[in-house]
């Protein structure tokens, strides 16, 4: 094994010998330097390997043969090796990345670069506090030297601010060190630790000075203006090094000296950390320059790490795992993003739209963003999970809340940025050159993130059972992205079919509840995929993300423990986010979807954490036995799930997200995805049936559901956009489902299940059909269509059946749901809610009529005279669903009876009595088949009669209408569709005023304005930043000693 001392030796040797090379030999000198960096990486990696696999003991290295305190000592342990490896790998990759710059600047710059990493390496390894100072200084001087790499005036002035600030900080560190020496008489950290200087008068100040200096090196909010300038102005390659390597080293140093401070330091560090985390992310909200945004994010992540360190006493032995997970995600993702910034070379985040010309880079960016925010399968996901769980176990609710809020705010700007990258206009953006040496490091860190994420997952027992095989399938699909769409479509369908084949039969045997949902998810997925054949071209990126969503959904079903559930939930969210953002105008909608989903997910996370508190288990059963805080826990989880079901107040993301999505994505995200929220609610309510708090919560939930149904339907009635209309309709329908579940009776739940199945079928039919029509006619606006029945009879029939079913008119299956609903309402005694729900159901007629008549009836427009029937690939799934709908309508007992058995497990009383096809409740009965037959026979008889009477009718064309003696001239002026419910709007429009949208906008404005106001502290003047540092020290001093 190569001794760690050689790292220093090699680095120093390289740095010195580089001086001998001529400028002309820059390629050779670069190779030389690269070799040195690689060797340093190798050494640290080899130690890491040894520690991980061969139970290597921690070793101390005494320089010059003396023992401390007489000599400087280095230490090489597991932690050191991890950090060294991380830093050196980043250094190596950064060197590759900076090839052009280093070569251009020559050997001096290479020297500085190597020296920086030498400094960082020693900082990690050293156990001598003064040595620490020296190498910190070397590192920061080297950094300042590297900042000049970018010749712009901004970089220079930022570098000046940086060096002034670090100068002050190191001065303070120096005073602290010398004071420590004065009190301790030693510079050897291990010795100092033993002395407990913090309890010595004066010694405490010394320790404080060291501590604050190290913390200031980590750029705490708000004393960090100098660092932000550097992040913004320095070359992105340098920014990456500062953000990833230097910050990691700083964190390690802090951890190293923390024992000196003792337990009293944790609190202050935690406080500083959380303030930094929240403050920095908050200010990041207003930021529109990419590099500076990255700076804010970096500081925020470091703040999170500080918080984690500060919370060590509560996190116990999990601290390392959590900190490591967060740090590695941060370091790799941030390095990657900075490097990407260097490639894209755009000052403003809107300019990042250029990145999507290179899909690979976009994928990499997505990887980093999702890793930063903490999505599976990245290490930060598992770290965050453990963090939240441990905080909850230790009753640190406020910390938990603050961390989640901070993460949420970070998500806002990161996803906004990502949204710009995917969707902002990029036609007039400049081209950027793409170089292999720049892409390779980025790719390597991205791959590293996945790999480490996988292994991190293995480290948690609950996560270890997650089935990664479907994800591998997705990776394969992703790798096949160059194939044409139909091939990938076929592969995806086969994959889903095989997936269904492997898991559905088992559920059919054992668990009907999950069986229903898994059928909706997977069979629904297959059906919607069939429609994908209608698309030409490659549909880049569509199949992987769609499959991610389905895998996530199935994970939710399969989940045996909370972590697995949450894993699936986040996976589903990520996949659906990508699906939604594929729509033409859906950037803002995808963002609001993501934010609501993220907020909901964090609430769920908090709820899970509190639920498992004190139960020493993560299995889903913990929900059964929530004891304390039950009200809060159930509310949190419920609100979390309600964001997915788009219940009133949390619904504003849905219309845009579903309305703007692609034609075959809308049914995926509406008919299928929303059911995830329903499933979550069901799981929650099943588990908490016995809980006393549930009663009051479901009462509120019932009202919410009913009002959601009303507002959703009313909103739909005033839409002019066909897909938005359907989206609002989804809100209303989900309101019914929530209402049914909230009743907590047998019939109520049966209603909810019926609606779930029905909504899946008819909303899929409607969305697929309307989507297909939209594909043909090229507009969403209903008033621009009309008279398409002559051109698209199949589509018309599908929509007709869909709306008859949706509206609940007998004899189709919608009536099944309505009949159950009213029985349930009357037996439950929720009359007002029932009346509201009924009113909502009737309003459905308004929008359904508008939907079908504006599109298919009335006047055919000029430019649609030649449109064709909707694509056969849409017709196939639509008619399969129609057959399903018909079967459900004619033989409801086929599904209702087994569903009744499921519900009876939880609500044994008050179910339906079945006698053949006759369903009976205490207050009435109903026979679906008979009604179908009676209505059908009657209809056919009457039709026959009319046909006999008027078989010779003359067929006429569309303008052959009564027009008061005149004649119509254009179809546009003859077709009445726009705002046809104006009178209704006058009377009831106040109900659909965008109160809720306004509320959320107001919230968003408040946060953004606060950010805009607070960030004025960063005046751009170096002296102000110094003043910040000094004031900060004073303030923290008083906090620390109080």
């Amino acid at each position, binding site marked *: 094994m190569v001794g760690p001392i050689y790292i220093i030796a090699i680095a120093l040797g390289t740095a010195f010998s580089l001086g001998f090379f001529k400028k002309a030999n820059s390629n050779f000198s670069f190779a030389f330097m690269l070799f040195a960096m690689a060797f340093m990486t190798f050494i640290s990696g080899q130690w890491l390997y040894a520690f991980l696999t061969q139970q290597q003991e921690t070793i101390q290295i005494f320089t010059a043969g003396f023992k401390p305190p007489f000599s400087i000592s280095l230490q090489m342990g597991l932690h050191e090796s991890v950090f060294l490896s991380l830093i050196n790998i980043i250094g190596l990759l950064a060197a590759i990345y900076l090839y052009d710059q280093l070569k251009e600047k020559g050997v001096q710059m290479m020297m500085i670069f190597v020296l920086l990493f030498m400094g960082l390496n020693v900082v990690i390894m050293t156990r001598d506090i003064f040595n620490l100072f020296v190498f910190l200084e070397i590192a920061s001087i080297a950094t300042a030297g590297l900042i000049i790499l970018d010749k712009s005036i901004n970089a220079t002035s930022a570098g000046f601010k940086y060096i002034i600030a670090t100068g002050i900080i190191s001065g303070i560190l120096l005073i602290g060190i010398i004071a420590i020496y004065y009190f301790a008489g030693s510079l050897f950290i291990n010795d100092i630790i033993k002395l407990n200087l913090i309890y010595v008068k004066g010694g405490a100040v010394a320790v404080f000075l060291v501590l604050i200096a190290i913390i200031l090196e980590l750029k705490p909010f708000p004393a960090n203006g100098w660092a932000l300038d550097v992040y913004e102005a320095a070359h992105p390659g340098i920014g990456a090094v500062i953000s990833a390597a230097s910050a990691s080293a700083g964190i390690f140093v802090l951890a190293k000296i923390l024992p000196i401070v003792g337990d009293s330091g944790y609190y202050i560090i935690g406080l500083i950390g959380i303030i930094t985390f929240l403050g920095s992310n908050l200010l990041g909200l207003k930021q529109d320059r990419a590099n500076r945004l990255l700076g804010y994010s970096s500081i925020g992540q470091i703040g999170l790490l500080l918080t984690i360190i500060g919370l060590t006493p509560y996190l116990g032995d999990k601290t390392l795992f959590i900190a490591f997970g967060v740090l590695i995600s941060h370091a790799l993702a941030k390095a990657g993003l900075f490097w990407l910034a260097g490639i894209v070379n755009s000052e403003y985040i809107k300019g990042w739209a250029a990145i999507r010309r290179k899909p690979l880079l976009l994928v990499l960016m997505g990887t980093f963003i999702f890793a930063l925010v903490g999505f599976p399968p990245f290490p930060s996901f598992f770290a965050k999970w453990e963090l939240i769980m441990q905080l909850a176990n230790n009753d640190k609710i406020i910390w938990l809340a603050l961390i989640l809020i901070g993460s949420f705010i970070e998500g806002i700007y990161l996803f906004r940025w990502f949204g710009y990258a995917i969707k902002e206009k990029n036609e007039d953006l400049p081209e950027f050159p793409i170089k292999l040496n720049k892409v390779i490091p980025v790719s390597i860190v991205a791959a590293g993130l996945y790999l480490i994420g996988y292994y991190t997952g293995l480290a948690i027992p609950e996560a270890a059972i997650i089935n990664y095989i479907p994800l591998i399938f997705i990776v394969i699909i992703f790798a096949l992205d160059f194939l044409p769409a139909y091939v990938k479509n076929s592969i995806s369908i086969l994959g889903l079919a095989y997936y269904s084949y492997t898991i559905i039969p088992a559920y059919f045997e054992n668990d009907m509840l999950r069986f229903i949902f898994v059928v909706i998810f997977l069979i629904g997925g297959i059906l919607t995929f069939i429609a994908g054949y209608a698309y030409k071209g490659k549909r880049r990126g569509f199949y992987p993300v769609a499959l991610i969503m389905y895998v996530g959904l199935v994970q939710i079903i399969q989940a045996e423990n909370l972590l697995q559930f949450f894993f699936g939930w986040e996976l589903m969210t990520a996949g659906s986010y990508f699906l939604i953002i594929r729509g033409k105008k859906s950037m803002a909608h995808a963002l609001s979807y993501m934010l609501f989903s993220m907020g909901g997910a964090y609430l769920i996370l908090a709820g899970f954490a509190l639920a498992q508190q004190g139960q020493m288990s993560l299995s889903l059963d913990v929900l059964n036995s929530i004891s304390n805080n039950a009200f809060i826990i159930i509310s949190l989880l419920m609100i979390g799930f309600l964001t997915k079901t788009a219940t009133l107040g949390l619904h504003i993301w849905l219309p845009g997200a579903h309305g703007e999505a692609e034609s075959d994505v809308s049914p995926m995200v509406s008919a299928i995805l929303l059911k995830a929220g329903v499933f979550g609610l069901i799981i929650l309510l099943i588990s908490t049936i016995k809980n006393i708090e549930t009663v009051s919560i479901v009462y509120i939930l019932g009202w919410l559901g009913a009002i959601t149904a009303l507002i959703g339907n009313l909103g739909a009635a005033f839409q002019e956009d066909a897909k938005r209309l359907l989206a609002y309709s989804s809100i209303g329908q989900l309101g019914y489902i929530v209402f049914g579940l909230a009743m907590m009776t047998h019939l109520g739940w049966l209603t909810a299940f019926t609606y779930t199945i029905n909504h899946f079928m008819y909303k899929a039919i409607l969305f697929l059909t309307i989507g297909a029509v939209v594909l*043909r*006619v*090229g*507009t969403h606006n209903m008033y621009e269509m009309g008279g398409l029945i002559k051109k698209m009879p199949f589509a018309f029939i599908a929509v007709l059946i869909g709306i008859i079913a949706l509206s609940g008119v007998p004899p189709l299956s919608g009536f099944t749901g309505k009949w159950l609903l009213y029985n349930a309402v009357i037996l439950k005694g929720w009359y007002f809610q029932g009346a509201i729900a009924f009113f909502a159901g009737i309003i459905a007629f308004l929008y359904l009529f508008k939907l079908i008549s504006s599109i298919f009836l009335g006047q055919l427009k*000029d*430019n*649609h*005279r*030649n*449109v064709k029937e909707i694509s056969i690939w849409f017709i196939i799934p639509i008619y399969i669903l129609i057959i399903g709908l018909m079967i459900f309508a004619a033989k409801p007992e086929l599904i209702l009876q087994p569903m009744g058995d499921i519900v009876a497990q939880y609500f044994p009383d008050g179910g339906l009595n079945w006698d053949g096809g006759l369903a009976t409740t205490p207050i009435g009965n109903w026979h679906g088949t008979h009604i179908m037959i009676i209505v059908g026979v009657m209809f056919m008889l009457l039709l026959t009669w009319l046909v006999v009477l008027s078989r010779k009718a*003359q*067929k*006429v*064309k*569309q*303008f*052959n209408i*009564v027009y008061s*003696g*005149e*004649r*119509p*001239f*254009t*179809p546009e002026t003859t077709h009445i569709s726009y705002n046809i419910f104006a009178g209704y709007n006058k009377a009831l429009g106040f109900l659909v005023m965008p109160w809720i949208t306004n509320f959320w906008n107001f919230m968003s404005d408040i946060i953004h304005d606060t950010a805009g106001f607070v960030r004025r502290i960063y005046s751009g003047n170096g002296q102000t930043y110094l003043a910040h540092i000094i004031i900060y020290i004073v303030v923290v001093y008083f906090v620390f000693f109080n």
Partner: protein
Amino acid sequence: MTEDNFKMSNKQEEEVSKFFAPENEKRKVETPDGEIIEINPLQDYFSDARPKVHHPNTSKVVEKFLNWARAESLWVLGFGTGCGSIEIPPLLTPRFDAFRFGVQMRPTPRQSNVIIISGYLAVKTLKRVIRSYEQMQNPKYVLALGSCTINGGMYFDSYNTINRLDYYIPVDVYVAGCMPRPEALLSGFGKLKELIKAGKGEKANEYVEKFDWYKANQKKIIQDWNMPDYNW
């Protein structure tokens, strides 16, 4: 009466086209697929089918019964042309009460059986009358009111008022006078009922049989004939 001579000749079409409003002219539109198609409004939006003769029921008894029903249920199109239109509303007042005789007003030609040409008929109005008349369904009757419909009345020398209604649409009953009082109108309804019950209310078929003659007359005075030959 073949299909060919029913359609307008090219020359006719050209002559007519100079009066067309812009909406009537052929226009080019872009389909959603980006293809350019030409729209010919008159052909694409209007049925150009020829009206058919609808023969009475072969069974005399049935036809008699149906004629009785038709006579007892005269639905009048609410269409006022000249000064006579002011004489129609009193029909519905307690003084005259045409409802007694099964006369009711309908607002749409599709549901009406009787059109009352109530007085002088300007050329511009004639066009609307023809449209409305053609939109009525087969057993349909025309009740012409006032001397203007007979020979032009006091407008016999007007440049813009027709003189003889029966050159343009077949008239069942004339009610003379300038203006005839509502009593006379009621008597006209009585006459019409007699005609219908006698099976003589087949003017609708006559219109179809002498279609070309009627059309020629109509087109002679309606210069901007911007509609299909039969308004279904």
